[in-house]
């Protein structure tokens, strides 16, 4: 499974990539929406996991752009900030419905959401 993880906090993006790669995925971390769009054509991702509030292009806009390029790509947004509500509402009004997870996301739950066999290590 090819996954792009987008988060402006490098620790979050890197650790998540580490976890996903540990489960046999091919995940890469990028720190903003523009980078995600640059990597996507090369990666041809099955899933994009993106933070919502980020400098530059926000998660929702990134998600919309990815959806247009790769309609089959699954998009999961995760956020820890109330401000993200407004962006999601706006997107919903425009007809976009995203899977949204609240931070902190339990990695085990995330893996099961992705349909990955839960690693014995994940506890």
């Amino acid at each position: 499974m090819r996954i792009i993880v987008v988060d402006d906090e490098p620790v979050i993006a890197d650790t998540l990539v580490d976890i996903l790669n540990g489960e046999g995925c091919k995940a890469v971390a990028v720190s903003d929406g523009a980078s995600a769009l640059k990597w996507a054509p090369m990666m041809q991702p099955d899933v994009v996991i993106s933070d919502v509030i980020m400098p530059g292009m926000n998660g929702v806009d990134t998600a919309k752009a990815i959806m247009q390029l790769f309609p089959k790509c699954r998009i999961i947004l995760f956020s820890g900030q109330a401000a993200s509500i407004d962006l999601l509402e706006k997107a919903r009004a425009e007809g976009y419905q995203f899977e949204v997870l609240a931070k902190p996301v339990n990695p085990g739950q995330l893996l099961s959401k992705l349909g990955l066999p839960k690693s014995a290590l994940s506890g």
Partner: protein
Amino acid sequence: MSTNRSHTAALNPKSDAFDSPGHSVQFYGDDSYLIEELSRFIGSALGAGDAAVVIATKAHQDELVQRLQARGLDMTLAVQQGRFITLDAAETLAKLLVNGWPDARRFAQAVGRVIEQAQTTVQGKQRKVAAFGEMVALLWAEGKHEAAICLEQLWNELARTHSFTLRCGYPMAGFSEEGHAELIQKVCAEHTHVIPSESYASLLKEEERLLNIVYLQQKAQALQREMAERKKAQQALQVREAELANFLENAVIGMHWVAADGTILWANKAELDLLGYNREEYVGHNISEFHADGPVMEDILQLLGRNEELHGYEARLRHKDGSLRRVRIHSDVFMQEGKFVHTRCFTIDVTDQRDADEARLRLAAIVESSDDAIVSKDLKGIVTSWNGGAERMFGFKAEEIIGKPITLIIPPELHQDEPIILNKIRRGERTQHFETVRVKKNGERLQVSLTISPVKDDRGNVIGAAKIVRNITENKKIEEALRLNERLASVGRLAATIAHEINNPLEAVTNLLFLAKRDIAQGGKARRHLEMADHELTRVAHITRQTLGFYRDNAFPTSVDISEILDDLLFLYGRRLHARDIEVVKQYKGKIEISALAGEIRQVFSNLIANAIDAMPDGGSLIVRAANSHEWNNSNLPGARVIIADTGSGIDPENRKKLFQPFFTTKKEVGTGLGLWITSGIVEKHGGSIRVRSRTEAGRSGTAFALFLPAIPPRPEEEGDSTLRSHARDLVNSERASVA
């Protein structure tokens, strides 16, 4: 008495007066006396073979003839012989008048001829003619006194050329007036002899007559004085009458008289002024034209028709300008010989008084219905009035406290304030919105706002004070709650901000722990520590997400999993449940999902669970049941049924009624009294309903709240929604924060 010589002479009768020749005048009181005297006069003439001419009324002629016949005279013969000639006085008089005045030529024709005719009959026999006339009396009776004198003079002139003895007859009734004294002299002056009326003439003895003269002189004098007195009295009476008429006319109270048929006979100035009409527009018209209410008018006339009196009868009269005047009518009927002559009405305008009464009643009603206590007291601090608001606020009935000191409602420690307040009032000063404490009859204290105004009499002297007391206990509570709310809201906002800042590092730590666990060998001590750290971290994540999670701002109904929310809350309250040794019994039937505002629904359950925990300080069972169901009264409305019950001490029936009122709390120290009010508000907003059951019997006590929430909430009004939402959000924020 006049000293006129001829008059004295005329009244000085001679013994032969009855038979003396010339021109005599006969006064009489009664007709029978006239006939008696006349029959002697005419009878003796006829008896002596003389002729007689009688010009008299038909009645006098007939009576005379009867009398003469009774004396044995053959009247038929006398007439046949032409010695007794009668003429009708009225007819003869008519013949000799020209423009109501005796005409000499006509007199000569009508009377002179007859005398000549009579003389011709007895001529040569040395006989005389006796004549009687009372045409002068007819003229006199008509008040034509001058014409009568003139006629007497014509007779006198006739006597110069003809020889006859004449007697005139005047009834005394024609001389009954005061001014007639002079006229009687004039009449007498035209005669040679005067024959007084029967009262005197019938006296035969000289001494009787003299006595009678003295008597008459005395009587005349007395009468003269009496007349003068009477004249004076009459003048006084006239003055008095004029004064009374003036008094009535100018009285300040309207007065009028009405005839039995309703015609106004008289009205005074005040009455006319009251209604704005001039005299012609009112007097002579029917009273009903001026009454605004027909039935009232009829009733008045009926009452008066039965000779009843009206006292302050209320009616409405029409003013000329179209307005209606309210009046009180006092009236009775002036009756004469049992007949209705006219009413005597007093009309008192009470329009202003009634308007004032109505205004006063209106004000009184306002005062009485006011929620504020409105009371008054005198300068000694004694209660003088007490409205309904005061009764409700303080629990004292008006009759209980009026006349008692106002200090009954002032707490003992504030009694020293009363003299200060009273002094301020005496100085005419007003106290506005003074916040203080007052005490109810049952001792309960109230926070009040006082406005005290001095009450002045019409001369401006302060005679007491009016107090408006507003119970601000509730306001104070609301103020406090709002302050608390604001404080909680700001704490909440701060906490939310912090929580969001924490979420990112939490995410990182979670991931790091996950990786650390993955990369460390199983079974080791470090691995166990990591697992514990992960467990604790999960709790931290849970708490931040549940209490300050971003769902809270969700403004649109979303799909809400009831059991998930309940589980979250039970998890959140886990520590408290555990600490109080409360056992949780969960019964969820199937997957229960409704469309709702997730944050608000969470708030509802959070309140109910928190209350249940508070109700069981010594442990017990918390029963949480949820199932798909339908509305109690409407099986077509699907939704979720949730029951949250405790085995606490239960709620008193008295308190049960107040449960959903704002600021009602049994948890005096910690409660805001807003929880269940908010809860029911949210449930209502979602189109649901909430019921409570409670038992207080020891051993089987407890409280159960049963909720129904429809699967799809009613569509809120576009506009009202945002306000409601923000209001609800604020409340939810504060409550949430207080729970945290």
